């Protein structure tokens, strides 16, 4: 049996290793991770962990009662990949000058939070346990907080810091109303009203250009493109994440313009025996739409299961609909289905002010997605009603020659 090295010990890396063992992979399995922590779950970082009701130990992915049979190497940074010639092992290069060799390499390095220029004390992002601990250590009770960005993580952070007693919370985001472009006017209006009821001010059309610094060297606020300065004691920047794939520069692994690793519908990259999963990957998937870009929890699990199956030569798991969730002010928002932009939303039930909307999205007359606010039953029903569809034939792999399976190696 050949060996597998997974680069990146986050959600996707952990679940790739777990799925490989579950599917009976007997060969070596090493997971290299830059963080000092054992793999952990990020969604609570903007929610219950930031709120203080969870500890770092609560976020751990591995089960202490049934730990995975994996060699974990923590605190090691991977700096390069040297693809092996046909059949020969690939070399994964570490910062300390050593390498790890394996027939199969799974790239699972996730993404790094995007900052707004230079960040001084008082300016925060949310991607790691340390980020959340630093924000939690601020004196948030009574503080004026400005959150830059209007995506899920920004809105969740706003909801948690107001719960922690912030005196004022302003969400400064580029959209007129949060998430309107992606999810339509109904959800945007409902979220705006929900945040307003809890005292969070969403300032739309705000293009932030910099975090400003006060005389004490701490963050003093946020400068907007129109010259407005939003004063703040604490600034949270939630403007997205960039794939952490710079270490692949110079390797033969093809990345797209945004730095995502280009993969076929099974996670195979341009280099046979190299695969990519999770936030760092872009799977070209005919079923879910071209150039589908991951970025949510469920994608990491789906990718992991699919790549592990390809590696051991098991049948590919059925392709399920994309899915993500967000929790703000105690309201669970769940989205299932594929939204490419330009869908028409219809309110099936609930109201904008009730924060209990059930929305259906249609594209070209076809129902493609649903969104529920506190509608777990309906969203689950919809997900289950969508029959798994056949896995499309590989695209990238077909052009770049045969992909490796563990059997070939």
């Amino acid at each position: 049996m050949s060996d597998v090295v997974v680069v990146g010990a986050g959600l996707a890396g952990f679940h790739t290793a777990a799925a490989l063992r579950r599917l009976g992979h007997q060969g070596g399995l090493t997971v290299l991770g830059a963080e000092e922590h054992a793999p952990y779950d990020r969604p609570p970082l903007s929610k219950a962990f930031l709120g203080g009701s969870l500890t770092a130990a609560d976020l751990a992915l591995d089960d202490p009662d049934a730990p995975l049979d994996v060699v974990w190497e923590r605190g090691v940074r991977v700096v390069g990949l040297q693809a092996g010639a046909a059949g020969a092992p690939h070399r994964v290069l570490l910062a300390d000058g050593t390498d790890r060799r394996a027939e199969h390499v799974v790239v699972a390095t996730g993404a790094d939070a995007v900052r707004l220029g230079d960040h001084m004390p008082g300016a925060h992002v949310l991607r790691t346990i340390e980020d959340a601990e630093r924000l939690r250590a601020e004196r948030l009770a009574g503080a004026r907080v400005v959150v830059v960005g209007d995506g899920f993580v920004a809105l969740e952070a706003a909801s948690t810091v107001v719960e922690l007693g912030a005196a004022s919370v302003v969400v400064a985001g580029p959209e007129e109303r949060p998430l309107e472009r992606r999810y339509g006017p109904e959800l945007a209006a409902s979220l705006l009203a929900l945040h307003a009821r809890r005292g969070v001010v969403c300032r739309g059309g705000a293009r932030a250009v910099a975090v400003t610094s006060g005389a004490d060297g701490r963050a003093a606020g946020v400068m907007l493109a129109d010259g407005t300065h939003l004063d703040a004691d604490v600034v949270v920047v939630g403007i997205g994440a960039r794939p952490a794939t710079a270490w692949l520069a110079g390797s033969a692994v093809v990345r797209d313009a945004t730095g995502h690793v280009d993969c076929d519908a099974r996670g195979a990259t341009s280099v046979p025996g190299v695969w990519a999963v999770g936030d760092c990957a872009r799977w070209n998937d005919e079923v879910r739409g071209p150039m589908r870009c991951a970025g949510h929890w469920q994608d990491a699990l789906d990718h992991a299961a699919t790549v592990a199956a390809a590696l051991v030569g098991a049948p590919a798991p059925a392709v399920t609909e994309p899915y993500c969730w967000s929790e703000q002010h105690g309201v669970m928002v769940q989205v299932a289905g594929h939204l490419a932009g330009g869908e028409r939303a219809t309110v099936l039930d609930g109201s904008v002010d009730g924060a209990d909307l059930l929305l259906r999205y249609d594209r070209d007359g076809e129902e493609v997605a649903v969104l529920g606010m506190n509608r777990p039953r309906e969203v689950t029903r919809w997900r289950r009603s969508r029959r798994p569809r056949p896995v499309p034939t590989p695209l990238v792999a077909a052009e770049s020659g045969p992909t490796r399976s563990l059997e070939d190696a």
Partner: protein
Amino acid sequence: MLRVCAMTDLVPGEGLRIDTVVPPIAVFLTEEGTVHAIDDTCTHQDASLAAGWVEDCRVECPLHASTFSLLTGDVDAQPAKKPVRVHAAEVRDGEVWVRLSTAAPNLPPGVTFA
């Protein structure tokens, strides 16, 4: 035993959350007509299993899709790691009666019921 609801309160293939007991429990009527009671709160995070999908005597969590057996409480796969408690359920004269488990519940971290 404790009377928790009437059979007419139940919908085949669905769960009903009973929050008059602490922690809350979920009562399920399967498509096959059997009645089961388990803890309502998922052992992973704060989700109500009563809203989950019921199939083959298992319920799938509506948040991250771990499934739990309605018969034994065992969990199939991550993200949940621990089983839920099962409570003995009986139907008498159209009423559902439950004997609550005396085992300690596996509530998810950070979740408490006052």
